[in-house]
């Protein structure tokens, strides 16, 4: 891949019920932060991409709400509907195709509507929707399949929630820093077994933005550019019964492509930090395995060994992850942004020492059906 870098990042705080902000307000804040971070103004941006979801926003052509706020006036602009990792991948494509800089932003306000009704709409209207299935119950089906396949326990999953909510104390943008124990997670109410309240990410509002630049334009960046070493994305079957829910073929394929770009053939040896989309606690374990950071079924042992703790050898979700704040779609971009901050040395209280290479992961669809992996590094 030609050298392409992330030269500016901006995140609003992740909170619930941000009634004082419209989507345009959130996007403006995130874009302004990203531009300031890059030492640029809107005039330095060649092309703009946005990301949003018509269902979550309750608005057909949801991108229209933020056309003013994202600085797209008199510029080429387009919209990817999906997790921020995918939209950001398209932003990279724009730059590789010859544009010097691309501003990409994504927004979400889970608080403005009723999440189960919206995620129910992911399911097929003829065969599935009227069963009432939605994101939590469907993820529970995956959790069970994964746990049964590998003998993973609810306590194993709870450890992820404890770690990540704890990490959130050191991340000022995180919504839910919580000092909890495995017992607290185990005592929280079941929503859909085996998923309990503290296994689930919250309803969140937020927006984020990044500035992507080619090598020439990265020279003008205010902070150290963080290079996009590899990107891969891939999609599994839709019907849950068509898939082996205990593993993620799509993630394995996406990671394989990203690692090939980035010359990574020993992921645990060459990757210093990972930010994965733990919309539910069990997902962190599954995504670690799909990313090749441990073997299949060994995510629980890896986590129990504290290797993925903030002080561990391979910190995972030093930011607190999605379980500490999950503005859907924005979350994937936040995983990329957190990796960028870590590689730059700008992660503040949750900075991990010596991060040269980091991995970010996001997904679309039920049970992580469609996966996107990014490798980011300090060298071009």
């Amino acid at each position, binding site marked *: *891949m*030609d050298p392409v870098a992330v030269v500016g990042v901006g995140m609003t705080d992740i909170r619930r019920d941000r009634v004082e902000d419209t989507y*345009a307000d959130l996007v403006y804040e995130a874009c302004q932060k990203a531009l300031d971070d890059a030492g640029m103004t809107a005039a330095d941006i060649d092309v703009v991409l946005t990301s949003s*979801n*018509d*269902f979550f926003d*309750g*608005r*057909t*052509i949801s*991108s*229209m*709400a933020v*056309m*003013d706020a994202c600085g*797209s*006036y*008199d*510029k*080429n*602009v*387009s*919209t*990817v*509907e*999906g997790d921020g990792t*995918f*939209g950001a*991948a*398209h932003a*990279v*494509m*724009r730059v*590789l*195709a*010859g544009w010097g800089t691309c501003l990409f932003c994504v927004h979400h306000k889970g608080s403005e509507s009723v999440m189960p009704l*919206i*995620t129910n*709409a*992911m399911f*097929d*209207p*003829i065969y599935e929707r009227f069963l009432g299935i939605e994101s939590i119950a469907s993820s529970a089906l995956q959790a069970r399949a994964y746990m049964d396949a590998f003998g993973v326990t609810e306590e194993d999953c709870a450890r992820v929630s404890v770690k990540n909510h704890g990490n959130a104390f050191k991340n000022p943008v995180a919504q839910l820093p919580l000092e909890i124990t495995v017992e607290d997670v185990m005592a929280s109410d079941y929503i859909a077994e085996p998923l309990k309240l503290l296994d689930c990410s919250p309803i969140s509002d937020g927006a984020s933005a990044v500035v992507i630049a080619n090598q020439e334009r990265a020279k003008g960046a205010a902070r150290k550019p963080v290079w996009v070493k590899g*990107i*891969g*994305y*891939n*999609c*599994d*079957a*839709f*019907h849950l019964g068509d898939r082996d829910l205990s593993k993620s*073929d*799509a993630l394995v394929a*996406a990671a394989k492509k990203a690692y090939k770009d980035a010359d990574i053939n020993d992921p645990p040896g060459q990757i210093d930090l990972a930010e994965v989309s733990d919309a539910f606690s069990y997902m962190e374990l599954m995504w670690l395995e799909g990313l090749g950071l441990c073997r299949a079924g060994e995510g629980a042992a890896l986590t129990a060994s504290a290797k993925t703790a903030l002080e561990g050898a391979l910190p995972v979700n030093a930011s607190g992850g999605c379980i500490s704040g999950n503005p859907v779609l924005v979350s994937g971009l936040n995983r990329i942004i957190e990796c960028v901050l870590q590689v730059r040395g700008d992660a503040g209280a949750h900075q991990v020492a010596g991060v040269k290479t980091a991995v970010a992961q996001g997904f*679309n*669809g*039920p049970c992580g*059906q*469609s996966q996107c992996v990014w490798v980011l590094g300090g060298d071009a």
Partner: protein
Amino acid sequence: MMAATRVGVVGVGMTVQRSTRRDVTGIELINEAVRAALADAGIKRKDIDAIVIGNMDHFEGINYVDTWSVDGSGALGKPIMKMTTGGTTGSTVAMGAYYHVASGMFDRVLAIGWEKNSESDTTGAIITAFDPFWDRPTFAGAVAGLALEATLYMNETGATEEDAAYIAVRDRRHALNNPYAHLRMDAKVEDIMATPYLSWPIKLGDMCPRTDGACAVLFASEGAVDEFPNPPAWVHGVADRHLWAYTSDPYVNQKVVGGTWFPAMERATAELYEKVGITDALKQFDVAELYLPYSFAGLRYMESLGFCERGGGPALVHSGATDMGGECPVNPSGGVMSSNAIGATGLLRVAEAALQVQSRAGDRQVPGAALALATGFGGCYWSDELVLGKEKPDKVRG
């Protein structure tokens, strides 16, 4: 080693466009177009490197269409992303697929646009496009907004309803040559004038229909185009402007910027023509597939696209220049006045333009067509524009 590359269209597939396709689900409709495109390109599903898909979510009521439709789109085990920008979705998807390939990341990318308008209440769904506080309570769907534009145009230029009605007549007559088109008829201006008013001055006959349909277009890198049986339709350049967020914005801005008709289209046109080297659209383009959401657009947009001077739309059209056999036929396929499956519509313009410069457009072929303009329209007066040509472009990126 990736590098920016030139891109060509090497395969095209489309379903027959009908008001209601009850025989298939949305996924099966998509699959029909995809199989047709693969057959046209002479490849199998496994040969596709990535997919870009688009539609307008609320028209089918499906959240995350990219993950829902994999059985039909061919995305099983492949990279896929969804793009949606309202009416411009089809052209956005085309441009998106173009950039997938131009980036060097993929060699063979399938763009898919589709819509099953029959499954929803179109106006009910479109109203949700507009801001819930400021526009939605007073707004009455797409037609009213276009009526505002038409009224302004008529006041400024003296164009008449009959002038506009001819566009509907022309495009649906062109559609008689297109077996895939929805509305195909040899009507007269009087027939259009006799249809009931929806929102003055727009009558039923002035509006595009609601259609079920899907289209798939395969884009390939210059390194891969020789694998395919069809000559590539090279993408010479793309540009877009999505300027506005509120429906009244364009009218205010016309005063501010000295009264341009359609700022988004004019600015996208300026960028594109400069990139591609167009100085006289009427002479240089052999054919144009334009997204005209309603009849008046066929007058007004010609001006904003540089085919004639301001106010010259009616004269240009009445001269016969835009009919089959004219200097630059517009919408030999029948265009959007004939078929409007929204997610597919903008992509069909690109597909038709590609077929023209490949000399594969059958009964609707413009003889010797070598350079074509394709446009998309939608959202809040947004404009997407692409130029496709028979000759390989000089520049690596357009």
